[in-house]
């Protein structure tokens, strides 16, 4: 059962990564080339059809995988690089500062990524980067909380006291003891946030707050499809989003089960 989760996760996320990598060197058609066939049905050579402008859906789907991965990586990187140090810092003491940060993170938590994205899009112009930054900032509290909670657990261990008895500096304790012990949990969180970011970007793109029309993204394809006349053009990017979100989510769960020492002892 645990293995199954990991396998499905690996297949799902592997498909997305594969599509993105292949699209760097080869796609069936030029993804932004307008062919004569508009609203093409799912027949050879356009196996997934063409959209309203006659662009090849299969090619756009593959290139869209690049954007999807980019959004996930950028958003998670922003969230983790700011959230984790803050969480560890708060978890290791600094009570007053901790309170201030905790309240600040509550405020950020209450602010949905959508609002931030509208704000950033109006200030910087809507693009994939803007959307990723907005999603990343909105995810900071998730990492901050998780890092703080797991840091508190580590700090209650006697090996921290042993290090303090020898006069090991706090910064060294953070790097040598705290970070390695909270890393597995943060990895799982990163995978979960990765899929949340993909979903959020698809939503923002659907609302026109992410990539412009020229850049193929799954959310944008969903937006541009006409569900009544050509349902498959909406279903295909939808399925792609589902595969990516589920794939990375299950990958995170699978890796967590695999790494958890308590579960390992049972095995």
């Amino acid at each position, binding site marked *: 059962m645990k293995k199954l989760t990991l396998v499905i996760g690996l297949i799902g996320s592997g498909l997305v990564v594969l599509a993105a990598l292949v699209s760097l060197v080869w796609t069936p058609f030029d993804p932004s080339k307008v062919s004569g066939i508009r609203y093409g049905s799912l027949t050879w050579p356009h196996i997934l059809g063409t959209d309203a402008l006659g662009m090849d859906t299969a090619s756009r789907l593959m290139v869209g995988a690049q954007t999807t991965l980019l959004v996930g990586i950028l958003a998670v990187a922003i969230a983790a690089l700011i959230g984790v140090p803050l969480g560890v810092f708060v978890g290791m003491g600094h009570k007053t500062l901790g309170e201030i940060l905790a309240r600040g993170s509550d405020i950020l938590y209450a602010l949905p990524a959508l609002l931030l994205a509208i704000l950033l899009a109006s200030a910087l112009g809507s693009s994939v980067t803007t959307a990723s930054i907005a999603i990343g900032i909105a995810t900071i509290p998730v990492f901050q909380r998780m890092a703080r909670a797991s840091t508190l657990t580590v700090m209650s261990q*006697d090996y921290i006291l042993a290090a303090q008895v020898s006069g090991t500096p706090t910064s060294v304790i953070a790097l040598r003891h705290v970070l390695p012990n909270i890393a597995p949990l943060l990895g799982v969180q990163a995978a979960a946030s990765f899929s949340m970011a993909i979903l959020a970007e698809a939503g923002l793109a659907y609302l026109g707050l992410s990539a412009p029309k020229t850049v193929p993204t799954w959310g944008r394809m969903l937006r541009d499809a006409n569900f009544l006349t050509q349902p498959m053009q909406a279903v295909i990017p939808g399925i792609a989003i589902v595969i990516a979100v589920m794939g990375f989510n299950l990958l995170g769960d699978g890796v967590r089960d695999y790494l958890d*020492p308590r579960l390992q002892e049972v095995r």
Partner: protein
Amino acid sequence: MTAYSLDHVTMAFGGRRRKVTALESLTLHIGEHERWGIVGESGSGKTSLLKILAGLIRPTSGVVHFLGRDLDHANREAMASLRASVQMVFQDPRSSLNPRMRISEIISEPLRSPLLKGRVDVPTNPETRVSEVLDAVGLPPDAATRFPHEFSGGQRQRIALARALAPRPRILLADEPVSSLDVSVRAHVLNLLNSLVDSMGLTLIMVTHDLAVVRHTCDHVGVLQQGILVESGKVLEVMNHPKQEYTQELLNAVPRIKESG
């Protein structure tokens, strides 16, 4: 020379509303090369006392002298000399050894501390020191490259002991060092502790709830009851002629084989 001299040390936790007094006006003098057993029930303030002696927490009031010097947490030099001479062994080696570090890294950690590095009384070459102390606690040299979960409870406590001895401390603090171990390995670890304290001429301050352990290892005993030191002195005197009812109760709680006759 006195290792520690505590004068009316009080330790209180919590705020204005719920204040818990862990130690109350405790006065105690511990000479060098003495072996003290601090006994008392859980919640009697034993662990707080040990943490004060280790410089991990600062007493609410009272004065602590360490090797004749005021233990002032703000004084870097005073703290550095404490850190260089005092080491501690904890109750549960599952918690006191970082599961993600190799044994060599765990044992050499005190040697790499900036407060200890470069001092003449601290061994300079970590690698040779690690194999020296591993040998001293009866573990094979190849243990250095392994991780804590590959060892049994008794072996892990030996590793914790090796880490404490690595920087050649003068004083060893021990918080219930054998109570988490199986009865069968307790005696081994306790005997090892005894012989190491002997051969290295250490001052030992051990906190325990087990008077049998104190009788086996220590020459002095202090009895704590709800944060108050109710009795202290030489082990034989206190055990044979307890002045306090509480000490007698603790003694009665120790199971012993009746002498025939």
